[in-house]
């Protein structure tokens, strides 16, 4: 009994230590966001003398925060919806029909291969194509690119998940006269809730934080997203960490909220999608 108590206590202590370690960077970011530059120079760990919001005001003004937030939402929300819809259908098709179709087996390999191509290699061709199609500095152009670069991985996740769903459910639907498309929407897609939540949450996070694509495609001030505005606080030789952290915290709020809301589906989806039953 005594042994159990000590081990429980140790477990709690270890968990508390782990929590402190994980919370430390966030806590430092929050503290820094309230400090003036002279305070930052004195100590990184100390509490701010006053909890003033100057950094937040400055960050909102300098980064035109509301406009960049609007742009980010306008780019990320439709992209995530399109990614979930398209990749669920493509993952389903590959998972269910690749056994009979060489082209689908090849498509599966192409998806996998495309994950290994870094965006830097595509940068110049993409820029040229976008310029000729007048898609540069447009939010819909950005959505096309984000969707295009995300479909392969999300389809890959769906393939693993769909393979875990028994055929028999769909077969009984077919016997009742359901077409394949209706069967997918009415029977299979609801069963993909966990992986869809995972794909949606992960891509919300990744697309929200995207820098590489946005820096190339969105060069005009009025279409820039939040991540691109972050560099406004970093000069060649100087940095305004107070404002940078204030802007980072403001921009984190929506994506953290989304992640917390979908957290229980994410772990489930990743585990099920990764293991072939």
């Amino acid at each position, binding site marked *: 009994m005594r042994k159990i108590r000590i081990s429980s206590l140790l477990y709690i202590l270890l968990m508390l230590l782990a929590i402190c370690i994980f919370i430390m960077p966030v806590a430092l970011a929050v503290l820094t966001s309230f400090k003036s530059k002279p305070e930052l120079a004195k100590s990184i760990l100390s509490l701010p003398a006053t909890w003033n919001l100057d950094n937040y005001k400055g960050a909102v003004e300098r980064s035109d925060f509301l406009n960049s937030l609007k742009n980010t939402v306008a780019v990320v929300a439709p992209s995530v919806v399109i990614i979930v819809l398209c990749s669920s259908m493509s993952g389903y098709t590959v998972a269910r029909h690749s056994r009979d179709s060489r082209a689908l087996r090849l498509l599966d390999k192409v998806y996998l291969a495309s994950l290994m191509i870094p965006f830097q290699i595509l940068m110049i061709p993409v*820029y040229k194509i976008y310029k000729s199609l007048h898609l540069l500095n447009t939010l819909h152009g950005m959505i096309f690119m984000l969707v295009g670069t995300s479909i392969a991985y999300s389809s890959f996740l769906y393939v693993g998940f769909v393979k875990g769903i028994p055929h028999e459910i769909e077969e009984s639907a077919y016997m009742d006269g359901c077409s394949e498309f209706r069967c997918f929407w009415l029977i299979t897609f609801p069963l993909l809730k966990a992986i869809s939540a995972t794909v949606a949450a992960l891509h919300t996070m990744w697309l929200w934080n995207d820098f590489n694509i946005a820096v190339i495609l969105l060069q005009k001030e009025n279409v820039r997203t939040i991540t691109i505005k972050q560099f406004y606080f*970093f000069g060649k030789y*100087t940095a305004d960490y107070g404002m940078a952290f204030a802007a980072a915290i403001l921009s984190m709020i929506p994506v953290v909220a989304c992640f917390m809301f979908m957290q229980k589906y994410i772990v489930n989806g990743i585990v099920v999608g990764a293991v072939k039953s």
Partner: protein
Amino acid sequence: MSKKRIIAVSMVLAMLLTGCGSTAATANGTEEAKVEQVGQDTTSAAEEKSSDGEVITLTWLNHYAEAGKQAWVQSVKEQFEAKYDNVVLNIETVDADSHKTILQTKLASDDAPTIFDLSSNADLQVYNEAGYLADLSDFECLANVDAGLLKEGQVDGKQVGIPIELSGYGIFYNVDMFNEYGLEEPTTLSELKNVCETLKANGITPFATPFAEAWAFSCYPRVLYDAVCWNNDGAFWEKLADRSLKFADCEDFKKQMQTVWDFHEYWGEDAFGTSWDSAQQIMANGEAAMIAHGSWAVDGITSYNPDINLGVFPMPVSEDPSECRMIKEPGQQLVLFNYQDERIMEAARNLYNLIYSQDCMRVYAEEAHQMPSVPGDYNILPALAEIVNYPAELSFSEAGLKRNDPEHEDVLFETMMNAYTGSTFDVNELVDALDTAFDNIKK
């Protein structure tokens, strides 16, 4: 089957041809820039037609993220557009790290910005060779710019870039702290040693040393070897690069490298673990009294402590005060893309005339805290004013002199950092290592 093979081979060939079709500049190397880009669609980025007349749009790609510099860029835009009805100045600000990549992507995609900045004469040579740069030799604004700095923007007798600022290298110090301990600006190495001893005895770190970052480390030895070796021989780095001169044969260089080590006991506790930001904070807090660095340190340190009183002196290099040199280097240069269109060139000429005017440079000096290339009576930070007004005979201007290319520079600083990281130092080992590294590059 044969049909499928033909289709497969055709697809592979098409992909290969598409991939090889463009030999233009790649994203990560100026060396790959090719002349053939010029002349292709050169008006697209700079020109737009409106229904009721012709509007010329100029694009200025820059990496001026600092609040003061952004204010300057914005004031240029406002003044320019107010003065010329038919011209729009489109500002594209990107972060300093992505600037080169974005510039080269744009150049390779026939979407060149009208004006952009390059940092050195070596860059100008590469871009000029690729045919990207316009000749600015007949621009009226050249008359406003410090003639000494203009040399940095010249390639093959043509003025292809115009510096917008001057940078200075020396020892920046806390004037109030020096006054408190009765110290004066040292002019010899023994005087500098005495200053360091006094500061150390009073619990002050003599030098803030941001050696965790190679570029910041480089400023420290640079204030010594540039002031002596390069000042005495303008082709110093060129000769070392082509190996007609060996480090081992440069007694002056060895002497200066030994001086760096002789002062290592006055560096901070964790010199190679201190970042540039930390070093600025250490200076701003009064934990350290001096820093061997570039003139941007003044703005950086002052931003952490607006009340700090900073001064600057050239690094002593020997026991002879007359050998001290304040190092002056031209900063960023504005270049113009080589448009073949007279209207665009005319609009760009007007823009240059505005940028390089005293009124415009006043904003750059006073809000961005820089030393403009256009001389004038500006209200700049005192330490910067000291650099600008430092006597020419006691200054070393690096304008127009050939410095190391990035490959040699990287090897130089990496080898030096390795040599100074240990607890012992042998100058002969350092110069041998440098000679080996430079020999390897030449091979």
